């Protein structure tokens, strides 16, 4: 299943977790719980020591995952071992991709993208790789037949938007607000604005909105504003963090994750009904 087609008639629910947070084992169970919870695409973070695009919640997750021993090779193993149906997107920073060396000592994007594709990854989001620097990564993804998802920010002007859409595949990651990842308590007014601007471009790419979505209600409003999907990270990671702190059993945490996933998914569906009542 290709990424684009994971966005079907219904709005997509795209959860994020950091692989290996707070341990390899628990993390596996959590990703699988999201799958059960109705995820349409899962963004699985490969932790990098300098996550400049992340807020405190995901930074902490990255620290936990690194401490649990997560590395790029182990990440690939982790993906291979996962028992999920949902397409997986690898979210990481460019240096890890750039440094990667495979067994035959092939290095860089080409090596990593192929290894990841082999393991089952279907796309990439690389927050510190703007269109200006994306050529090698784009080429590797094309070669491996996987997607490279671009991020569109509220600050992205029309000229940039055009270039961005031209190289993005799978979906477009619409950053809902300024700043870094992190669950906020409101919905940014700029999301609707960005979505409206995107509608003026001739693209078939689904538009998934992330940054600051934490409840079913948020999801509903975002989809109501025209999004094709909602990306939710920090709100889920919060559950993982609390579980790690209180040493809650993995199963219980997984169940909470699945619950929130269901709420978010339901919210998204709700939102779609508001815009396109005729379709139901």
């Amino acid at each position: 299943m290709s990424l684009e087609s994971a966005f079907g008639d219904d709005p997509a629910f795209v959860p994020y977790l950091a692989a290996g947070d707070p341990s390899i084992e628990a993390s596996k169970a959590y990703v699988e719980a999201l799958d059960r919870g109705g995820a349409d695409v899962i963004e699985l973070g490969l932790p990098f020591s300098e996550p400049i695009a992340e807020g405190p919640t995901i930074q902490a997750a990255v620290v936990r995952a690194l401490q649990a021993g997560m590395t790029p090779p182990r990440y690939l193993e982790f993906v291979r071992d996962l028992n999920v149906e949902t397409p997986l997107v690898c979210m990481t920073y460019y240096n890890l991709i750039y440094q990667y060396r495979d067994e035959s000592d092939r290095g860089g994007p080409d090596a990593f993208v192929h290894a990841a594709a082999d393991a089952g990854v279907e796309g990439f989001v690389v927050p510190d790789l703007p269109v200006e620097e994306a050529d090698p990564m784009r080429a590797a993804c094309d070669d491996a037949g996987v997607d490279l998802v671009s991020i569109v920010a509220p600050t992205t002007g029309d000229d940039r938007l055009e270039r961005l859409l031209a190289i993005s595949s799978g979906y477009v990651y619409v950053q809902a607000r300024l700043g870094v990842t992190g669950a906020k308590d409101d919905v940014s007014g700029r999301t609707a604005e960005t979505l409206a601007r995107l509608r003026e471009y001739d693209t078939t790419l689904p538009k998934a909105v992330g940054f600051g979505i934490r409840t079913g209600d948020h999801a509903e409003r975002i989809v109501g504003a025209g999004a094709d999907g909602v990306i939710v990270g920090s709100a889920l990671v919060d559950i993982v963090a609390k579980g790690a702190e209180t040493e809650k059993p993995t199963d219980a945490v997984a169940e909470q994750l699945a619950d929130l996933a269901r709420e978010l998914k339901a919210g998204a569906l709700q939102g779609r009904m508001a815009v396109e009542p005729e379709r139901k």
Partner: protein
Amino acid sequence: MSFKTRRSAGDGKFGEYGGQYVPEVLMPALEELTDAYERYVLSNEDGFMDELRERLRDFGGRPTPLGRADRLSERYDTEVYLKREDLLHGGAHKLNNALGQVLLAKYMGKERIVAETGAGQHGTATAMAAAHLDMPCEVYMGRTDINRQRPNVFRMRLNGAEVNPVTVGRGTLKEAISETMRDWAMTVENTHYVIGSVVGPHPFPSMVREFHAVISREARQQFDEQVGGLPDAVLACAGGGSNTMGTFDAFLDDDSVSLYAVEAGGSGLGVNDETGVAPNSASLSTGTDGVLHGARTKILQDPDGQIVESHSVSAGLDYAGVGPQLAHLVDTGRVSPVNVDDNAALAGFHRLSNTEGVIPALETAHAFGFIEENHEDLGDRVVVNVSGRGDKDLETVIEETASHDIENAPDMDVFERMGGL
């Protein structure tokens, strides 16, 4: 290309290094900044450079002198000249860049300044420039650095800046830069990020170098007027590399002049595999090609590409990366990367203090650690950039000198008995 006449910001690449590896949300700001850099800085639009030059003179104290170090010259049988950036307002070369960027932010219509700081020198310079130009300013600083550079924390507060402690990781410059980028990602529309060295995404490495190039332009001319001709070697300590690039820039085309970037060797080279820590900050000497904080350059990383914690007795050199242009100049052989360890730097600190009457920053002291061991290979006439003064380091020097047994140091017991500073 000649290094002396630039009219374009270029493409931000230095060989393979450089670039703009930042979140999309920041890209428009970098485009805007590149445009402003070309117009105001490179083309003096609206008289920007005239105003900057005047303020650097009247507020900053430029030109800084070039003076002969009589006793070191005798000691090494080599003519040693000191370029005195320690006399710049704020006590380090940092103001050249900070004032330039804050003024540029004003020309760009920005309303707020953020900055990161390691030693606190860039933070204080930025806070001073912001006070001077009436711009609100927030500075991110690692908790470890806050502890070892307290006077600078206080100075920033006095200048009206907020100081935001960064507690992630080891709490040094690397984490402070990451955190400032996060602030900027949130506030980019009305805020300018005054980066403190020739690092980060394009146009920062070029622009910061350009603001600091005044150091070498002055030094080159002063040397010619006071001594005649060109020096044989030019030395500067290198952390991120701003004073290094500033000190080298005007000499880059002078093939007869050897250029030495002196890094912090810390307590040893290489990376400790067990702890994942580099007990040094020698990214030019021991780092490898990678991407950090928006640029491809030489960095300290583990085989997977995770950035390792660096170390140096001097907070201002304690950084896992280095400017991309400097990395390129090392690869092409134009600049020699060298390093000295913490103890040699401390000895250099004491030597300059008690033989020349100049108390250098611990960062600067590395260059004097290097010349002590290598003066025979440097030719007859050497210029060393005194990138900053050591007032901010007194506490560290008391502690480290007492615990490391530095031969040429005054007795530290007195101060320990006084209960420190």
